[in-house]
């Protein structure tokens, strides 16, 4: 398949065929990750800037590893070490980066739309590694890839996304992707942490976790940001955990062999029971491994693309 996209802003840009192709490509790269020497010369001489204007360990490391395994040169730029803290605008940071002529920029930023903002101004590929509450397409793709490896196929499957949907870019991108793949999506969380309007979202909404989890093939727990309590959206973590913390008990209501996902980093005992996170049902570490393979696939396809007319 000839890759034609310059930027990855959200999964909504991709067709089903392209997503399938990404899974196959990631699967191929996954094999490289099991070799004793985990490095191929595919992107030798190309450079990727990892521009993380918001704290991130796992996503940034994942992209860094993915780039290096393909022999690309990766350069990190974080907010604390950048001119952003000196009052430079995103536009000027973008143009400065552009002048250094990288082949791709991976951006993580706290404001929705910032990846698109960069993409509109740069000639190189822009990969969105999370923009505000808006989208986190590489996370959704690695989640989809993890499930693809686990399930083989998607039709007839049901997945529950549990927790703070409103502030979650992971949830937004996953709803779009899983719906495209034919997975039925359920959402569960307190009303204060659901988006104000779910009109047009292809989801079923539950407020009761025991109902929501009944018969599902997988549960994706979302990280609860501790500042939601201060914002008046929750009474406290104790009450939240007592109501929405996913435990083995809940999983007995799910379908046989149902799996648990978490984009990390986990708050054990808040959104996911610590013991559940360590069971065989948990795909959390598979997600990390899939993440490197998926990001290798993405860097490869976007950096060697042939843009159409």
């Amino acid at each position: 398949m000839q890759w034609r996209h310059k930027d990855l802003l959200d999964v909504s840009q991709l067709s089903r065929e392209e997503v399938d192709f990404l899974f196959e490509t990631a699967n191929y790269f996954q094999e490289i990750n099991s070799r004793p020497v985990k490095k191929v010369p595919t992107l030798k001489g190309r450079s990727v800037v990892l521009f993380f204007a918001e704290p991130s360990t796992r996503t940034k490391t994942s992209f860094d590893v993915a780039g290096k395994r393909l022999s690309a040169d990766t350069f990190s730029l974080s907010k604390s070490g950048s001119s952003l803290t000196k009052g430079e605008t995103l536009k000027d940071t973008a143009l400065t980066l552009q002048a250094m002529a990288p082949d791709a920029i991976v951006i993580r930023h706290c404001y929705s739309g910032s990846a698109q903002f960069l993409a509109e101004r740069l000639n190189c590929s822009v990969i969105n590694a999370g923009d505000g509450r808006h989208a986190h397409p590489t996370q959704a793709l690695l989640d989809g890839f993890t499930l693809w490896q686990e399930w083989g196929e998607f039709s007839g499957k049901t997945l529950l996304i549990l927790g703070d949907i409103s502030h979650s870019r992971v949830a937004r991108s996953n709803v779009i992707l899983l719906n495209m793949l034919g997975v039925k999506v359920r959402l569960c969380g307190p009303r204060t942490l659901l988006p104000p309007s779910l009109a047009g979202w292809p989801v079923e909404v539950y407020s009761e976790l025991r109902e929501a989890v009944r018969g599902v093939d997988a549960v994706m727990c979302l990280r609860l940001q501790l500042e939601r309590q201060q914002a008046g959206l929750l009474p406290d973590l104790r009450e939240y955990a007592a109501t929405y913390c996913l435990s083995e008990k809940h999983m007995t209501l799910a379908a046989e062999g149902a799996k648990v996902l978490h984009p990390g980093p986990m708050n054990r005992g808040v959104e996911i029971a610590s013991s559940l996170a360590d069971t065989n049902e948990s795909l959390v570490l598979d997600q990390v491994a899939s993440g490197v393979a998926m990001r290798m696939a993405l860097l490869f396809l976007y950096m060697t693309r042939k843009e159409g007319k």
Partner: protein
Amino acid sequence: MSTCDLVILGADYDGQLVDLFVGDGEIIELVPAGKNTPPQGAETLDAKGHLLLPSLTDVHTHLREPGFEYKEDIESGLAAAAKGGFGNIMCMANTTPVNDNATVTELMLEKAHMAHPFGPRLFPVGALTKGLKAEELAPMAELSRTGCVAVSNDGLPVLSTELFRRAMEYASDWGLTVIDHCEDPFMGAAAGMNEGRTSSLLGIPAQPDVAEAIQVARDILLAEYLDLPIHLAHISCKKSVDVIRFAKERGVKVTAETCPHYLTLTEKAVVGYDTNAKVNPPLRTEEDVTAMLEALDTGVIDMLATDHAPHAAHEKEVEFDLAPCGISGLDTALSVTWELVTAGKMSRATFLRAWTVAPCTTFDLPLNTFAKGDPADFFLFDPEEAWVVGPDTMQSRGKNTPLTGRTLSGRVTAHFLAGEKIV
């Protein structure tokens, strides 16, 4: 009896060809074309193919001077007003320093007079509270004596209902109407995005329509209790309209304005994170647009205003969350609303009421109804002339409009104020 010194020949006035006779800055008479012969020595202007309309009044603008001249100044703002068909301009007090004293008001009036001696006329709106801080009352007697025609805390709503009530009472002593920007300061304040379907998809903080309607209800209950007038700025949604209609049926002295963008654009304009569509109150839904048009037609909403809010290009070229709210409106308002008339979505009578009669009677400003003795404030308008909205076609220093690149029809080709040509 005025001596005729200007005659406009063959203009189209509500479908009739007319000649307009003007003398000493006043209307002498408007007659069917060719009925009277222009007197010797009077200047004549052939207006064939042009509509004759009275100058519009804008009760809500931000001209940014003093303090933010890089966004706009009184000279450029009034130039945009003149070309945009406006003869009377009211400007808000959120300048630096704030217009909460005679010195700032005098400076504004002086700047306007120096830059545009024949108008558009500037009518400053004074601050309701000192420094717009919503802590102490502004010296409204001083502001009134210097030339302020109303008072407002526009953009910075007064949270304390007690202070707001005292401000309304005190303002009434000086014949000043209070203009209120209705917004609950705790519900998605100044988000510039409507809470709903689009904000949920884009993942941006947003303000629900009830944040406006709740304050509208408070103001109306206060106005009824105190038996004092209140003017509600830039109403954007159906819920507010419902509350205002209820109030008017009860005889509350409430007047309200809305803006061209709430009649023509929805929250979908923000898709793609267009910061030029970020405005406070935010663009709402299709249902709200329909309700606003109907409310304007039935008079529940009395008048139109631009809420002209110019910003520098670099201020808007940032992440959506960081961009300031506001749309530059003086250049486009006339074309946008006349297009509604042409499309049959607004009657000509409503257009004239909303842009001339209602604002002028509410704030006691010069009004031309083409009756004998009225100020000769009018413009000639070519409804067919197409123009593309953009930096080169706008007079305002603020080029921030979601209409950028859009072709609008209709332009002012000549504009007279008190008989003096200003365009």
